[in-house]
């Protein structure tokens, strides 16, 4: 009898308090809608930023006359001795030539011999460490020039202006997105808990009376929690439905044209829907029972 009774109580209270119930549901709906748009956007943006940062690297050009043993020695050095090394890719003279020739056939037609050296493309462990990596490979000398750590290294180079620009730009983007995400989550929690608190506040007297005629805390709490679950679920389902419609009507036709929108890093719609539903139900159920706790102290 009890669960049925609690469910009946919750339904009765939803229908008797239609306006506060609607307000609670609407606030869940709006929040979930905004989150549902924002989560993929944040993911796509930070994904894009990370992808750009991934391009930051240091080129280690070897001397023209470097032998196979020199190459092996430098490779071992990069792999084991130098700090902040992430990935090391070797591009041989021949490979570099082939690549460049493909890109610029006429210019390379004019050149008889291959002017390109053997190269190591070294990616730092994290993009921010790129300058440290360069310093490790070619410490600045007293006189101002740089001396590479190995005799067969001709030059250590990072694409300087590009690197710092990428680093600062992507850092700003990521920080802004993170800040927005935190603000949005705080705002959602505040909005929902405030709506719940308001609707509970108007029923404070009711709770007080229930306690005075001998209702236990859990007897009072269950209908409220069920009410929260129902309203949260209604708001969440409505929001997810709207998101689905939006995705099919707006996003899917565009994604054929823009590669960015179909970026592989974003969360799948099904998973997003589940996450949003669980969050809306959980937050409103927890919100009602936490807000109620204060009123139960009679």
């Amino acid at each position, binding site marked *: *009898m*009890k669960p049925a*009774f609690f469910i009946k109580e919750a339904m*009765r*209270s939803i229908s*008797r*308090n239609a306006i506060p119930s609607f307000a609670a549901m609407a606030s869940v709906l709006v929040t979930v809608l905004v989150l549902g748009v924002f989560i993929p956007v944040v993911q796509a943006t930070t994904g894009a930023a990370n992808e750009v940062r991934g391009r930051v690297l240091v080129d280690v050009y070897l001397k023209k006359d470097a032998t196979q043993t020199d190459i092996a020695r430098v490779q071992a050095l990069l792999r084991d001795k130098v700090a902040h090394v992430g990935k090391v890719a070797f591009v041989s003279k021949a490979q570099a030539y082939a690549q460049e020739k493909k890109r610029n056939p006429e210019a390379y037609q004019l050149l008889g011999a291959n002017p390109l050296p053997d190269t190591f493309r070294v990616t730092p462990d994290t993009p921010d460490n790129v300058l440290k990596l360069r310093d490790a490979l070619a410490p600045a000398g007293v006189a101002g020039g740089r001396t590479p750590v190995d005799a067969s290294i001709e030059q250590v180079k990072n694409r300087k202006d590009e690197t710092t620009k990428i680093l600062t730009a992507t850092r700003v983007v990521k920080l802004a997105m993170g800040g927005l995400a935190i603000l949005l989550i705080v705002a959602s929690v505040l909005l929902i808990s405030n709506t719940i608190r308001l609707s509970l506040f108007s029923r404070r*007297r*009711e709770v*007080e*009376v*229930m*306690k*005075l*005629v*001998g*209702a*236990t*805390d859990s*007897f009072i709490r269950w209908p409220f929690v069920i009410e929260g679950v129902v309203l949260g679920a209604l708001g969440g389902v409505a929001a997810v439905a709207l998101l689905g419609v939006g995705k099919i009507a707006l996003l899917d036709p565009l994604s054929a044209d823009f590669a960015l929108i179909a970026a592989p890093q974003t969360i799948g719609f099904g998973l997003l829907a589940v996450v949003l539903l669980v969050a809306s139900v959980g937050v409103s159920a927890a919100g009602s029972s936490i807000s109620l706790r204060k009123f139960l102290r*009679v």
Partner: protein
Amino acid sequence: MAIVERHKQELERSAAPRDRAPSVIEFRGVSKNYGPTNGGLETASFSIQRGEFVFLVGSTGSGKSTLMKLLIKEIEPTAGTIRVAGRDLSEITRKKVPYYRRNIGIVFQDFKLLPDRTVYDNVAYALQVTGSSRKEIRAKVPDILRLTGLATKLHSFPDQLSGGEQQRVAVARAFVNHPPLLLADEPTGNLDPETSVGIMQLLYRINRTGTTVLVATHDATMVDRMRRRVLELHQGRLVRDELDAQYARADMNTAEFGALLREPSPEPKRGPQADRQRERDAAREARDEFDDIFPTDERP
């Protein structure tokens, strides 16, 4: 014979508390201060026995509601101990309070009905909190509503009822559990004399089933006519405790009782001894029922 009876009664009354059943209500030096200037109740000591019908009188702000609130543990005393059926209220934990309250029917001064429930559901709620079955509720609620004269108002909401009708709902809810102790805070507060008499008759009828009844009111003339025990508060102090009960015939039926209330100035009436004996037997039966609900470890 009569002298022997009375002597026995006296002995019973003066016996040490441990030798007899505990009082239903016992206040020992109870004070409640709401603040440095607002005294609610000051060192009140009294006790109420089972089956008694007691009036609590006093002008506005004298502390009647405070005393009632203390009894249901809505507020805590600042000093002293309160025992109900031998149990120290300060020992009841927060978790146990709802179970304690279910043994007490309360008619609140401001009714405290649930606004979004019908008359029927308001009364049923008092049973639902105790986990009563639907069958039980369907059996008990219409009965008590008929008894309180609300049979035609089952599906009205509190805001569709007159003040007197709301008061009756409050009484019905307080009594639907058949609690061994009934507290009524100004149950005739803003009612016309005729309706007041009706409510008092109802409380009297309830008292005759063995329930201890404590009624707070500032309608002193009505109380004096009823010839019951009267506790009077004045600015938080207990200034009068008169056991007038012995002057009233205890076995009047409700109609006679109502007639007594309507009399301009009733003469003290003495009932035959045999009747009083019968009343005491009835009270003892009710007491046993009370013990089932309020088990105490103070009795042998």
